[in-house]
């Protein structure tokens, strides 16, 4: 329940997140920086992915705390926005004030989802002890379509604030 509340707080603070992939990667990157998102991320087809996070977002949508609107494009992206009920609930629960992760979350939210996928994958591989050449090789095998982001993602993953 704490995880779901933190996700609601994130969507409420960002006002708009474009795409489930972007939301997944933002939460993973924030978690890797030590912020308290208790979701378990495994590696799935498109990189670090949390089934429990996906389920929580669905529940928030089902309960009309968050809106989810398609753009009509095939598969992606859906736009998430907080409903007024989210603000009321957070206030009701006395969850106010600026969350510590907000500046980083805003910064990530302004980035392209594919770039976040690359950065999230780099962080995942690093947490599994891939370094140097081995890291680059594994990234290239897993993400041949994102090679162009690798160097920037690597540099930025190392310098993100904790």
């Amino acid at each position, binding site marked *: 329940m704490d995880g779901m509340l933190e996700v609601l707080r994130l969507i409420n603070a960002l006002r708009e997140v474009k795409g489930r992939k972007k939301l997944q990667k933002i939460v993973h990157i924030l978690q890797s920086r030590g912020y308290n998102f208790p979701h378990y991320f495994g590696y799935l087809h498109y990189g670090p992915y949390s*089934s429990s996070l996906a389920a929580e977002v669905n529940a928030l949508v089902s309960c009309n705390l968050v809106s989810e609107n398609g753009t009509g494009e095939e598969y992606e992206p859906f736009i998430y926005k907080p409903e007024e009920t989210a603000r009321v*609930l957070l206030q009701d*629960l006395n969850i106010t004030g600026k969350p510590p992760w907000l500046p980083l979350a805003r910064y990530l939210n302004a980035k392209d989802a594919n770039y976040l996928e690359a950065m999230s994958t780099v962080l995942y591989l690093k947490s599994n002890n891939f370094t140097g050449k081995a890291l680059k090789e594994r990234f290239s095998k897993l993400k041949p379509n994102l090679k162009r982001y690798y160097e920037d993602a690597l540099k930025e993953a190392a310098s993100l604030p904790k």
Partner: protein
Amino acid sequence: MRKIRDGGKVFRDPVHQLIRIAPKDVYILDLIDTPEFQRLRRIRQLGVSWLTYHGAEHSRFVHSLGVFNFAQRIIQSLYQRYGPKEQISKALIEHERTIKAAALLHDVGHAPFSHMLERTFGNKHHEERTIELILDKQSGLNKVLCQHRLKPDEVASVIRKDFPLKLVVDIVSSQLDADRMDYLLRDSHCTGVGYGEYDPDWLLHSMCVGRIAGDRNQSHQKLCLDRRRGIYAAERFVMARLHMYQQVYMHRVTRGFEILLHNLFSAAAHCAKTNNGLPPGTPLLVETYFQNNGQINLKDFLQFDESQIISACHVWAKTEKPKYSTIRRLSTAFLNRERIYAAVDLDGTPGTMIKLLRAVESLPKEEDGATPIYGIDTIEDTPYKGMLYRAREHATLEEIVNESILLADPDNADSAEPVETNSRMLQEMDAEQFEVTRLYFDRKKYKNIAPIAKELNITLPNVEV
């Protein structure tokens, strides 16, 4: 290294009848003989389900052998379909030993009452522990893999699901994997709940390889079912999962004892970390584990099994000091299968749940300082998410690939689609009926809970104290 006869080795198994280990797979016997794998004999597959279904005593050891067997049957089936010259068969042959080792070892990191301890301490997921055991150069598993010229990091990578070839990962872990194929049949057989049965032979016969239209990554070929043959087998497989979730995995009594154990572990951790300590006679390993917030080294992990926790419960149940009243009460209830909780299904919003949680948390502490006994149980692990997404018509490519069983046309392998788009039966089902949230509360606390519930429009059951 073990010797193996020319005819190989055969294990009798209640689900597979015979599990054959070919002479070329002698490394499997050596892996089975390691202390890390033998330990799985002392970890039950279904946690505390034996308190509901008395037959559910099967271990992760027998399940792991079953997963190995299904993995080897999937490889055989694909090899037969594509023949020796196809690229798919060549890839399977190249990685066959790694796949089989990963299938066998995928569960070695489970702690006793695994999910409850993970929930209490929230520090290490069993998959992470599995990876550590395989990569640790001191572990028997690592030594055996190296002796047989297998690469531990490749086996770990398959289990971690970041192995570059998705087909290899899918055989061990996907919506259509050897793990699910075994646990459904085995759990069904051992609990006596017949709904978990499906047609494994036809499912295996229908397996093929395909790729989602629009996904151009060559390494993203997925394990699929032949569209012409596999749809009914897939429907049965999904239905088996849905019914087993409802009848076994989400069972009200079982989940209640899980909540009880979680509360027991939380109270024990509280004692271990304060001046109280745990009662004298508590097994040293258990005491260390609770003092260190669930951290444990490899050597100790090999001895850390369900017998240790049950021994601790016997000690805790006998202690008479008031400062241990909560762990005494919960241990006694666990050992004697006393249902000290009542449960009510909740259909409120997350807001209601959170308010409920906060209100219950603010109730007066127990006499020994422990948190009042309660729990909100949210079943997050939906039995088949593919159906849920499809029903909402909001599936992303990522979710389809991750969460759906795929059907593919063998003549046009780039056209894989989720089974739910082809199945009227699955389309008609309301996936949300499988989402369950329950409040468990101590029957003795009924008077405290009742006003909170009334304020939140929750109807409590009649409770006899």
